[in-house]
């Protein structure tokens, strides 16, 4: 059974990947809910441009996104310098930088299903809620958001899986530092570049596949459970 026992470095890569992906999701989810709701419900100048900007990381080479992050959030980048000086927050060559890269790359996959979910909520229900005395914020919290929740969770699972596997932008932005930024995907890449790394590469592939499968099964289960709770399956 020695084959199934993880080496410390493999544990490190797996737990780092989970930490990075979870942080990326936690950080981007509120922004994505706001962006998805805004794109679905508000009409404003620059609506199309904002939508295009959000989807940019999906169509650009990941290396480009990583390089842009390096320029903006790197130690000498304007945003990076500002955050470092004001909040003592640094994204340079550490795991938070990896989370930022993963979050940005997963963002379009998160926003799109959320936007569709909000668009599917009938505005007439919000009108009914207002006529019963609920404020805009309360209406969002107890009517709009709960009805969009299956879509939000679907997007979250997709984004989490994407963040787990992010490679190009991460390695460009925060490099490949063991224990700090060497996530599962980066460890796998390192293994393939090492002579006799085949066994490690195979084991990491197995772990990555298992995590992905769990995520997909969980998302399916959640979606079905929520749909039943909302009562949509009855119509």
């Amino acid at each position, binding site marked *: 059974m020695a084959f199934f026992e993880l080496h410390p470095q493999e544990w490190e890569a797996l737990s780092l990947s989970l930490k990075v992906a979870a942080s990326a999701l936690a950080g981007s989810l509120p922004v994505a809910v706001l962006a998805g709701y805004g794109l679905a419900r508000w009409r404003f100048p620059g609506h199309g441009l904002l939508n295009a900007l959000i989807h940019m990381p999906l169509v650009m080479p990941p290396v480009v996104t990583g390089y842009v992050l390096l320029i903006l959030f790197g130690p000498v980048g304007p945003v990076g310098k500002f955050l470092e000086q004001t909040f003592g927050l640094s994204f340079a060559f550490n795991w938070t930088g990896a989370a930022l890269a993963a979050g940005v790359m997963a963002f379009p996959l998160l926003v799109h299903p959320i936007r569709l979910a909000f668009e599917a909520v*009938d505005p*007439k*229900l919000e*009108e*009914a*809620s*207002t*006529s*019963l*005395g*609920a*404020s805009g914020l*309360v*209406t969002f919290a*107890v*009517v709009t958001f*709960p*009805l969009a929740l299956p879509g939000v969770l679907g997007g979250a699972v997709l984004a989490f899986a994407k963040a787990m596997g992010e490679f190009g932008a991460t390695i460009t932005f925060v490099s490949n530092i063991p224990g700090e930024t060497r996530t599962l995907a980066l460890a796998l890449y390192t293994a393939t570049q090492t002579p006799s790394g085949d066994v490690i590469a195979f084991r990491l592939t197995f772990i990555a596949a298992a995590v992905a499968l769990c995520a997909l099964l969980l998302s399916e289960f959640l979606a079905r459970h929520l749909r039943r*709770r*909302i*009562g*949509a*399956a*009855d*119509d």
Partner: protein
Amino acid sequence: MIEVDIKGRAGSFAVQAQFTAPPGVTSLFGVSGAGKSTVTRMIAGLLRPDEGRIAVDGEVLFDNVKGIDVSVRHRRIGHVFQDSRLFPHLSVKANLTFARWAGGRSEDRSLTEVVELLGIGHLLNRKPGKLSGGERQRVAIGRALLSAPRLLIMDEPLASLDQARKADILPYLDRLRSETGLPILYVSHAMEEVARLSQTLVILSAGKTLASGPVSSVLASLDPGTDLGGEETGTLLEGVVTHRDEQWDLSDVALDEGLVIQVPGLPASLGNRIRLRIPARDVSISLAKPSGISVRNILKAEVDALRPLDGAYLEAVCKVGAQMLRSRITRASAFELGLKPGQTVFLLIKSVTIDQGRVGPAVRES
């Protein structure tokens, strides 16, 4: 008391509505596209009129001169929508109490009382998706009632239901009217519902109010050719059920003028006041009192006026005692009979045209 005097538009459709309604049920009546929904949305605060004033029970909700425009949220108007708009993810009970836990509205009616009034006690733990159309509308009415409303707007609440479901829900509307004492604005294009439920009638056509006032006088004074397309005109009568004939399943209804009309079945308990609606197209005219005829209600009348309609028809308004009855006949018949105002005629009303659906408990007009 509802006071409405507004001008505005929805897209390119202009509306101009002006009416005052005493407490009770006020019906906003008109064909599809007459502007009923637009006016209703303006009163509810979902659409802003360009100018004018809206007040309910003396409380001003909109006044462009004084710069008052109370938001939908604070208007306290219970809105029952045609498509019920129940929240699908919440139980019936959570839907009913929504205005309290989400809207911060006070409790002026108890849940038990409303549940009992609408007969929805067995539905409380269900989801709206599991309800029938009629049940859904009753829950929607309950939800609006429990929002401490100063006015209840019912926007064609029966329009999406089939005939049997309508018959199920109408008795609940009767109870609602008589037991809550809440002013109700009832929007409909079905004359049967309007005639049965309302005290005040507002006729809307092409975005404008054509007439408003007590329901029977508005119905009597309507110009049928233009207002209602001829089909819907008729006469509204009130009377007391005085006699019941078990053998033939017929009841006598004595009208205020001492006339008696016979209707099938027993529309209400003996001694109760009820309303009858007689569509103009179900009233025929004869010069002599006919005999050997199946029609049971034959009333002696005097022709008061003849109003030509579009096409082949005209409407004869005839005086029966103090009551005006409307009859819709062809222009050719009127010519051949030589009808003219002042002439004595006999009106033939087919008993079978006065059925349960057109009979409702009467409400005294104040």
